[in-house]
Every structure is written in structure tokens, then in C-alpha cells.
């Protein structure tokens, strides 16, 4: 994302980051939505199926196909946050959790349909889902936003195509549904490939070798400079930790002007401090200190785009939820945000109307109560 961003392609809808409701505490390892699809339930510390308090439908009849636990991921993660505020989550050394209960499925069904879930739970949290509920909490899982591209995977930079999680067509809007990431890869990967092949075979090569060589040398100098830089005061791991903390605290499941403001300031600060990173590893063979440093630089730019896009969207929509602007505001914000890279400042945010062809935006109502 950072490569396209720095080359002038805007990052679209970056404020929409999906928290998957069921990750293992500590490692963040994902427990698939399939466990809820097979009938798993979520309960708080009182053993209560708390989702019924959050407009996700009645607990009964149960089991049924559209049970509460199969509600959209953003709503489930938000419900967790509220439960935590109310003190109804369970404390563990790795943060608070709720319980994903699969016991009623029975050993046979679990081994047949969810063998990996059983193995992960036993190995990484020491819990056998056949006998005990699994401790879970929301974990950052997917970025709905990404490199702005169209339905043919083309970006505003001719010859640059983007597909998959790094791209934003957008087909996922403000909250992605389960399994669509894989299908998105296949469909838009194919379109991107075909488009690129067509362009390559139909265009005469205008390659200006001298200009390209110069660009390459500039890039080499930049990376070489990073490797050779001496006397730096910042560490890759330290900056990374600070970035993680400020983004989780300020731009998490629920956001406020203050929390986002703090994140924007911190990210801008980290961007400047990044210039003082010194590598310990100066070698040329499989230098992972360099790789991590380059990735960190990219993450910092992208994280800043997320924080700034979020503070500018003064409403709640899908996975972007604000405690200070709780309603969805279609009048002002039925638009995609576009973050434009600025080498010296915060990104410039612009908006583009959402293209509506068939389905008008409606109210998000779950639990079988249709309007």
C-alpha cells in the first residue's frame, strides 16, 4: 500500500479496519468464523449470550441459520467492547475475553468440521473446546481500505494494478463479510492479470532507459543510505511498539476526537523519528533488519493515513465507530475518503461520492427482523 501511496495513488477508505471478534488472547491467532457457523455461541462471564442485548436478534429459536453469533463482525466486536465497559468480560493475563462455547457440538462434530480450531485452542491456550469454552477477544483482522482502484483493478497510475487486501475497489465497503476476501483475490486478481497482460501487449514500449536507470539509482541510494546510516537514536522494535500502542488505543473499535487526535500526533512524530533509525545489520545477504525497517516505514505511513482518515470522518459507519458521532450521516459522508500522500505533512483527505447502482443504503437490521 505504501509503495502505491508514495507514488501518488490515493489510499481509499483507510479508516475502515475490521476487528474479527474471535481471536485468541496473547497471540491473536484467529478462531475461524466457521466455529460460529457450526453453532458455537458467545457468552460473557455470567454465561449469558450477550449479543441479544445489541440488536442482533433473539437468542431463540436456537439453533438456527441466522443466529445472533453470525452477525456482522464489526457489530460483534463492538458488542464485546460494550460488555467490557460493563465489566461483564473475563479477566486474563492477556487482556479481557469472552467465551466461545462449542461444547454442545460434541467431539465428533468438532473433529470433523473444526479440527484446526480444536488443535489451535489446545496448543495455544491449553483449552480443549470439547470440554471447555475457548477464551476469545476481538483482533485486528482485515483492512477494507487500500489502494484506490476501479472494477478492473486499475489505479490512477497507468500500468499499476492492485488486487486483494491491499486494494480497495471497494466491494467491501465499511465492513467485509466472511469469505469475501478469498473470492475478491480470485476475481480481481484475474481481472488485474488480464488487464495488465492486455496493456503490456498492446503498448509499444516507450521505456526511457536513462530515466528508469536514474530512478533505480535514486531508490538504491535511499535504501543504501538507510543501511549505512550511523549514529541513529531510534530502534525499529521501539518505534513499532509505539505505533502498535497508539493505533490500538486511539483508533481501535471505538474512537473519539481526542483518541484519534492523539494517534495522529503520535504517528506524525513517529514518521519524523523514523529518519533516525539506525540498522545494526549492515550486511547484504538476507538482511532482515533492513526488511523490517523498510516495512516499518511503510506501516507508519499507512497507519498515519488510517488515523487521519478516521479523525476526518465525523460519523459512525460499519467498522469505523465513534463515541462522539454515533449516528451514520449519509448526507455528509456517503462518500469514500481518499488519503493523498504528503512527504512532509499529514495526508490530504478528499472525498468521492459512493456510486449507487442498484441497492439504496438502508438501516442495518439483524436477527431476522426485516423492514
Amino acid at each position: 500500500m505504501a509503495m502505491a501511496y508514495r507514488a501518488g495513488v490515493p489510499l481509499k477508505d483507510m479508516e475502515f479496519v475490521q476487528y474479527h471478534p474471535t481471536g485468541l488472547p496473547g497471540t491473536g491467532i484467529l478462531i475461524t468464523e466457521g466455529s460460529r457457523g457450526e453453532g458455537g455461541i458467545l457468552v460473557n462471564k455470567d454465561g449469558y449470550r450477550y449479543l441479544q442485548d445489541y440488536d442482533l436478534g433473539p437468542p431463540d429459536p436456537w439453533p438456527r441459520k441466522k443466529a445472533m453469533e453470525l452477525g456482522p463482525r464489526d457489530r460483534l466486536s463492538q458488542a464485546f467492547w460494550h460488555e467490557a465497559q460493563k465489566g461483564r468480560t473475563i479477566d486474563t493475563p492477556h487482556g479481557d475475553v469472552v467465551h466461545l462455547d462449542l461444547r454442545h457440538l460434541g467431539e465428533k462434530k468438532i473433529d470433523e468440521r473444526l479440527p484446526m480450531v480444536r488443535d489451535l485452542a489446545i496448543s495455544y491456550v491449553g483449552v480443549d473446546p470439547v470440554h471447555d469454552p475457548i477464551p476469545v477477544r476481538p483482533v485486528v483482522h482485515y483492512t477494507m481500505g487500500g489502494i484506490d482502484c476501479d472494477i478492473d483493478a486499475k489505479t490512477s497510475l497507468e500500468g499499476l494494478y492492485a488486487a486483494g487486501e491491499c486494494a480497495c475497489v471497494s466491494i467491501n465497503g465499511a465492513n467485509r463479510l466472511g469469505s469475501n476476501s478469498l473470492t475478491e483475490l480470485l476475481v480481481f486478481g484475474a481481472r488485474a492479470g488480464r488487464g495488465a497482460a492486455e496493456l503490456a501487449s498492446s503498448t509499444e514500449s516507450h521505456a526511457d532507459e536513462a530515466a528508469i536507470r536514474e530512478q533505480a539509482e535514486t531508490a538504491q541510494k535511499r535504501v543504501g543510505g538507510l543501511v549505512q546510516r550511523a549514529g541513529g537514536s531510534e530502534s525499529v522494535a521501539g518505534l513499532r511498539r509505539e505505533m502498535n500502542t497508539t493505533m490500538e488505543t486511539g483508533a481501535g473499535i471505538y474512537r473519539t476526537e481526542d483518541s484519534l487526535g492523539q494517534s495522529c500526533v503520535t504517528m506524525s512524530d513517529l514518521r519524523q523519528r523514523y529518519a533516525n533509525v539506525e540498522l545494526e545489520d549492515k550486511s547484504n545477504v538476507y538482511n532482515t533488519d533492513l526488511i523490517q525497517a523498510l516495512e516499518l516505514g511503510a506501516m507508519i505511513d499507512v497507519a498515519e493515513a488510517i488515523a487521519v482518515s478516521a479523525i476526518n470522518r465525523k460519523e459512525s459507519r460499519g467498522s469505523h465507530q465513534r463515541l462522539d458521532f454515533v449516528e451514520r450521516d449519509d448526507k455528509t459522508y456517503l462518500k469514500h475518503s481518499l488519503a493523498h500522500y504528503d512527504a512532509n505533512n499529514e495526508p490530504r483527505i478528499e472525498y468521492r461520492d459512493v456510486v449507487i447502482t442498484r441497492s439504496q443504503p438502508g438501516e442495518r437490521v439483524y436477527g431476522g427482523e426485516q423492514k
Partner: protein
Amino acid sequence: MSERQVELEILRYNPETDDEPSFQTFQVPCPEDWVVLDAINYVKDNLDRSLSYRWSCHMAVCGSCGMMINGEPTLSCKSFLRDLPDKIRIEPLANFPIERDLVVVMDDFMNKLGSVKPYLIPSEQKAVENGSYLQSPAQLKKFKQYTLCINCTLCYAACPQYAHNEGFVGPAALALAHRYNLDSRDVGRSARQDVVASNEGIWECSFVGACSDVCPEHVDPAGAIQQTKIASTLDYFLDLLPGRNQ
């Protein structure tokens, strides 16, 4: 969470400065639920930024983090400190050339994987508009186990034949060929034979079975190879009958 002082003895190698690899020791304070990968990440973040190694998913599905842990080929993200002593010896995966520290050169494996034609060879190519290739659950069950390989190459590190015969096609590649040979939609077995049933294919295997022992996904490449031996032998004798279709 209680912590434990763990000593990691890691085999280091920098091709630009070293003629040969040597061990370096690190003391790491480890929470009890850590895996070896967590300890290695701690070393890189806090003690020595120059340590190089591969990893990605941290949940034993990507196959990147294979290494020798106390002499056993293991995924470092699934190697729990609670099952290990206080001194842990970590080396790059056996039977592969060392690129740098814990990173090995995988080219030979990648070539062998490709050499067994690991893709569906149907009897006729069907256009998407003409529908999908149908397959029953029973037909899927026949080869499903062999689809689970995550290409971690622990099996190559465990295999003494691969250790001594670098031409050996190897467990994972042969298990992958078996996956396609068993697939009801595929008719490519004869197309794969010259690599699979060669002297450097299944016939190099003497059924040590170490590969299946260390496989984190229970693919059982040893079983796949023996089954292929039986099928190939039957083929060989049946081909002697006049009029048999190749």
C-alpha cells in the same frame, strides 16, 4: 504469568564475514506460554538485530518457520517452551545449504515440487461455461489428506535419503504427486511417472518414515510413497500385457 530464563544456542552464519557457521548464545526471559519463535523474536528485537530467520503466520499454517530445535525438525511457532529444557539449540533446517543464520536455500525443493507436475491434468479441458468437474465426498476423501501439505520441508530435513542423495525428489514432492494421482478429476499419472517412478523418485525411498514422523499436518508422505510404489509396480507388470492402454 511466571517467567523462565531460557538459554538459546543459535547457529549463526554471515556469508560476507564467516567461513563457517558458529554458535552464539542468548539469555531470554520467557513467559511460560511462549513458543520458540517468540523467544527468537525477543532476541531480534532486544538483543541482536542482525539475527535472520523466516516466519509469518505464527499459527503453523504457512510453513515458513521450520528449523532444527534440539536436533528435531520443527516449526518454531508451534514449539512450546513448556515442552523444552532450559537450554535450547537452534539450527537452520538440516539438508539444505545455509544462506544466512537460520535461513536456508530452498531452490532445490521448489524445483522438485514443480517437477512432479503438481496441477490437475483432466482428460479434457472444460471451459468454465460448461460447468465444473464433479466429485463426490468419497472421491475427495481419497486424496484430501495429501492436500494438507504446507511446504514446510521438515520432511526433507528429517529424511536420511535426502541427506545423502541430493537428487532424491523427496517426501513432500512425491506426496503432492500422489495427491493429484488420486484425484478423480486427474488422468496425469503417466505424465508424472518419469519423475515419480524414477530411481531418484519413489525408488530412492527406503521407508525410514522419519518424514511422516515430523510432518506437522499429518500428511504421511511415507505412506504416499509406498502406495505409489505398489501402484507403479502393478503398472509395470500390467504394461507387459499386450494391448494395454498407456
